[in-house]
Every structure is written in structure tokens, then in C-alpha cells.
């Protein structure tokens, strides 16, 4: 491939949208993904993303903005899990498993009952970054602002709650509030990311970059910059590869993430005696 091809690709408006949208989504999933990974909450991310399908479907069914309905369901799921974890004798995994499978099933049923125009369900299951709209990008920037603002205000509290919630409590950190805030941010980030990789693969954006960087980071200060770099780099490579090779964009991005992860894992993830 020569430079002229790249220039031609960059002239395409849908590619411009995909690059901008992919960049923002890669950044915010990486930022929140650091905390999701270090809190060992990969399954929560997966659960919230699947459950949000019910919101999208409901939005189309009652003709109310699917994005906002998805946000509502995702936040409901995030808050519900956080609330029940403290109050139920069931394990977190069981609670999440029950919640997300029910809501995912509900989403599929509602999608099929929706009369008139509705997009293909596969758009939401597997994502389609090449069909991202300016409205999607607008929402992504809004969520990015929210995430950056939250990090600016609560970075120390997020980190301390994640590392050692008891010690955080003893330093007057509002641990319960921080737990809710991290989960709600995770839910909102997941919803804006669905257009890029779909509900089935979105947790890959949250988990893979942070997991790889965890293997090589010399300190926590490196975690967020390196994870964001990994995520943006992988998303752009995956985006261009999917366009050039005519492959599904979401799956291609996740495969690129997976290849980078495997290289890091083979180099750093296996202890050598």
C-alpha cells in the first residue's frame, strides 16, 4: 500500500468519522478500563454491555432515543449490581449472570417485536465503526468530557478505592460513592463504545489494553498513558485493516488488540526462573 491510498482513504468522510469516533472511544475505554481491570471486574463490563441491548431495543420499540434508553438500562444494571453486591448472599458473578442474560434476552425479543424500520441487530451485536455518525461522535465527546472531569476530580479516590478500600475509607474517601461512580462511568462508556465493536466485544476494549500494560508498567503512573496509547494504536490499525481487507471492523480491532496482547504476554507475562 502506498501513501496515495492512505490519502484517498482519509478523504472519505465515513473514514474521518470512524477515525475521530474510534480515537475518542479508544481513549475513554482505556481510561476506565484500567480501573475495571485492576478491580477484577471484567465480567461486570461484559454484563453491562449485553444488558444495554435491552435499552437500545426498547428505544426503537417506543421510538425514544435508543442511545439514552441504553444509557438508562446500563446505569440501572451498574447501580443494581453495586447495590445488591453488598446486600445479597449470592456471589457477584451470579447476580451479574442473572441480570445480564435476562436483559440481553429481553433486548432480542423486543428487537423482534419492533414494527417498521429498525437497524439490523447485528449492528449492535458486533458494532460498525464505519457507520458511526456525527451524533455518535458528539455523544462520545460528551462522555469523554465526563470521564476526564471525573478523573481530574477523583483520580486519587478512584485509585485508593481500587487498591485498598479499607485504607481509602480510613483516609476519608467516600468509598461507596466512588464504587458507584466508577460503575456508572463504566456503564456510560460501554454504551458509547457499542457502535465501535458491539455489545459482544466491547469488554475487549476495556480489558485487553489494560491487562497488557499491567504486565509491563513500572509503576501506576504509566498505566493510563500506556493503556490509552495501546488502545488508540490498536483501534486505528484495526480500523484501517478492516477497511482495506474488507473485514468486520469490530472483530478486526479486537483481533489486533489480541495480537498485541499475546506479544506482550509472551515477552513479559510468563515468569522466567
Amino acid at each position, binding site marked *: 500500500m502506498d501513501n496515495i491510498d492512505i490519502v484517498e482513504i482519509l478523504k472519505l468522510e465515513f473514514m474521518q468519522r470512524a477515525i475521530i469516533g474510534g480515537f475518542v472511544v479508544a481513549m475513554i475505554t482505556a481510561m476506565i478500563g484500567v480501573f475495571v481491570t*485492576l478491580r477484577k471486574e471484567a465480567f461486570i463490563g461484559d454484563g453491562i454491555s449485553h444488558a444495554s441491548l435491552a435499552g437500545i431495543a426498547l428505544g426503537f420499540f417506543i421510538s425514544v432515543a435508543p442511545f439514552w434508553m441504553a444509557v438508562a438500562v446500563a446505569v440501572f444494571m451498574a447501580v443494581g449490581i453495586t447495590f445488591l453486591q453488598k446486600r445479597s*448472599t449470592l456471589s457477584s458473578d451470579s447476580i451479574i449472570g442473572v441480570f445480564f442474560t435476562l436483559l440481553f434476552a429481553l433486548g432480542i425479543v423486543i428487537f423482534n417485536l419492533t414494527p417498521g424500520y429498525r437497524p439490523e441487530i447485528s449492528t449492535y451485536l458486533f458494532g460498525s465503526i464505519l457507520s458511526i455518525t456525527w451524533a455518535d461522535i458528539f455523544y462520545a465527546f460528551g462522555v469523554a468530557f465526563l470521564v476526564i472531569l471525573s478523573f481530574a476530580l477523583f483520580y*486519587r479516590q478512584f*485509585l*485508593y478505592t481500587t*487498591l*485498598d478500600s*479499607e*485504607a*481509602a*475509607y*480510613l*483516609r*476519608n474517601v467516600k468509598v461507596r460513592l466512588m464504587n458507584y461512580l466508577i460503575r456508572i462511568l463504566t456503564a456510560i462508556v460501554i454504551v458509547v463504545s457499542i457502535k465501535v465493536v458491539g455489545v459482544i466485544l466491547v469488554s475487549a476494549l476495556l480489558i485487553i489494553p489494560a491487562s497488557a500494560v*499491567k504486565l509491563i*508498567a*513500572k*509503576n*501506576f*503512573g*504509566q*498505566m493510563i498513558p500506556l493503556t490509552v496509547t495501546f488502545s488508540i494504536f490498536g483501534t486505528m490499525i484495526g480500523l484501517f485493516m478492516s477497511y482495506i481487507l474488507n473485514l468486520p471492523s469490530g472483530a478486526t480491532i479486537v483481533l489486533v488488540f489480541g495480537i498485541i496482547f499475546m506479544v506482550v504476554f509472551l515477552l513479559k507475562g510468563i515468569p522466567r526462573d
Partner: protein
Amino acid sequence: MDKKNFAIETTNLTVSINGNSILNSVNLSIDTGGFVFVVGPNGSGKSTLVKAIMGLIDIDGGEVKVFGEKNTQKNIASNIGYVPQYVGLDREFPITVEEMINLECEDKGKCHKEIGEHFEYLDSHYLLKRKINQLSGGEMQKVLIVRGLVKNPEILILDEPTSNLDTASHRDLYLLLENLNERGKTIIFISHDLNVVNKFASKVLYLYEHEVVTGDRESILSQYRDLFDNRSDSNIHGSNHINYKNHKNTDG
């Protein structure tokens, strides 16, 4: 007596976990500037007691006061430093000792000076740049001790802090704690090591069968040894029981 004479007071403190009674209507008071060892068999509720005092677990009933005020999070954060058993931390968390301790600091300049002094006391300043997964058990324990001291707390609670320390580090820790105690700090030290208690304790708080007995080392330790050899209710509740069950301060 002025309420500030007590660093910690509990009134009818009752705690159960998953329906199992752990502490049953415990009343105790710990003098400001005291150095108290909390002892008792495994599962007797030593850690539960201090966690209830610090508000880290929900209580079923009763009241806890710190320097005469309710144990709100703000009050606890202002007055108590805590050294937990190190096992609770995720050792694979990608963070250095320095970053972890910095989380405690609000005034970093002042904080770093004191951190340096504490590490020097424990002969461990070389640990600052290491990631926590590169620390041995004893080194991690020292880091947690320093972290508990960062805010220069009036009360320091240590939960079995010597379990991973070598003999020299034991001695360094006790010198540090004695020094702090001489400067007016209240020290509460959980241990199940009878040798440690025998060597260093003056006042002992003993937990057994969901209840608390307090007294001087000699009187408590005679009971404690007995119970270790032959765990029998008659030893704690019988006629030769220390002059107080479930609420009395024999030397105070």
C-alpha cells in the same frame, strides 16, 4: 474524668457476621496515650473488634466513640492510623511503594520528610521505588507500618504486624512504637504471639467467647495461658476469673 482521657470507648458493642455472633455487648475504654495489646484465640474477634471501632464493618448495636466523639469516618480519618494484616492487598497491583504511600499524603513536602524518618527507623528506605509485587512479606509489612504512620495519627492500630517480620525488625518496630507511645500516641496492638505479649505488654485486652476482659499483663496472661492449654469456659467465667467480665478495667 474528661472525655478526652479515653482514646476509644465502646458501649454495648455487638457485632455478628453472617448471623454468627462475634462480639456480644462489649464495653471497654482505652486510655489516651495507652499501649494496649489485644489478644485472644484465632476467631475470637480481635480483628472484628478493631474494624468495628474504625467503622469498617457494620455493627448490630451499641456505640463507639473516639476521643469522646462518635466514630464518624471524618473522626476516624483524623485520628486513627491502621496497619492491617498484609494479606488483604492485591500484590499484583502495578504500583510502587512510593505511589502507594503518596495516596496518604495531602501535604507532600511534610509527608515525605516523615515517611523518610519512619522508613529509616525500620531500615527500609530502599523500598520506596519498588513495585509492591517485588516485596517480601516482611518488607510489605514494614511498608504498611509506615503507611499507617504517614498522617501522624493520635491512635495507631496494628493487626498482627509482626507475623512476617524477622527478629531484628520486631525489635525495630517495638522501639518505634515505644517512641511514639512516649510522645503521647495511643497504640493498640493485636497479637496472638504470647512471647510478644509477655515481653512488651503492660495492659492487655483479652477476647474470648464474644466477650472482652481487660487487665494488666500478669493477671490476663495467667488466664490466657490457661485457656490456650485447656480451653474451658470455667477458666474464664469461673470464680477465679479476673475481677471483671465483659466490661471492666482492672487497672484503670
